[in-house]
């Protein structure tokens, strides 16, 4: 199925979770802020929240250093 991630269409498997998607992008879930269908998710929801056809995600990724 297709989801929209940061404005771009992305093909994911049916029932793909948010954390699967994050990991598939090479990112660490705890370093990413996720807005899924206009709701900011808590990190403990990432592994249970399933995407559906047309889900809209905004991922904001952080790298270390300050």
């Amino acid at each position, binding site marked *: 199925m297709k989801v929209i991630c940061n404005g771009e269409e992305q093909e994911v498997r049916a029932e793909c979770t948010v954390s699967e998607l994050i990991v598939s992008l090479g990112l660490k879930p705890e370093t990413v802020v996720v807005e899924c269908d206009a709701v*900011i998710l808590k990190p403990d929801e990432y592994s249970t929240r399933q995407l559906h056809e047309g889900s809209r995600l905004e991922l904001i990724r952080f*790298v270390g250093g300050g």
Partner: protein
Amino acid sequence: MSEATYEREDIEAVLAARHTDAVQDRLKKGVVGVLGLGGLGSAVATALARIGVGKLLLADYDIVELSNLHRQHYFLDQVGLLKTEALKQNISRINPFICVVTIEKCLTEAMIPHYFRNVNVLVECFDRPEMKAMVLRAALTSLPGVSYVGASGVAGYGENNLIKTKKIGDRAYLVGDGESAIGPGLGLMAPRVGIAAHHQANQVVRLLLGIE
């Protein structure tokens, strides 16, 4: 060393003469929270203090170490002090009339709204990416009306102009190149961290002045 003492009016007069009364009035009323007082946070807080932002909430639980002095605004004789206390001292030497509140806690997502609900702008200057993500999440979910300026991707000595300030939401801005993480062979260096810190500080000024 000069023995002269200066009154609040002396300092406010020179700031207003340079910045105009209207701008200075807004800056003086500004309340800004700085989370993390390393290379980014110590530079952000110093810049905001120099221009006369009225109140700064400075949060860090760490002490100044010798290994910090290559990029952080502290001095050799401050090694071993809490960063909050050391930075408060340094700010008081620039402008003793800035109100500085220090918070020596390892902040959690739940604590952030408690400490920072009354600031105009929250400036995220932490080192660890999971802490950075936590601050943005707290700002977006629990701090309506508070602006956010974060940073990601400031390590090394990459091109100056790859450091950008990007609007990521309503009153939310993220500074950095988005990619340069601290890691083997890529350390944090005063010049590039300073570029990012001053992007953050200037974005704070713009937000305090009501420029979106």
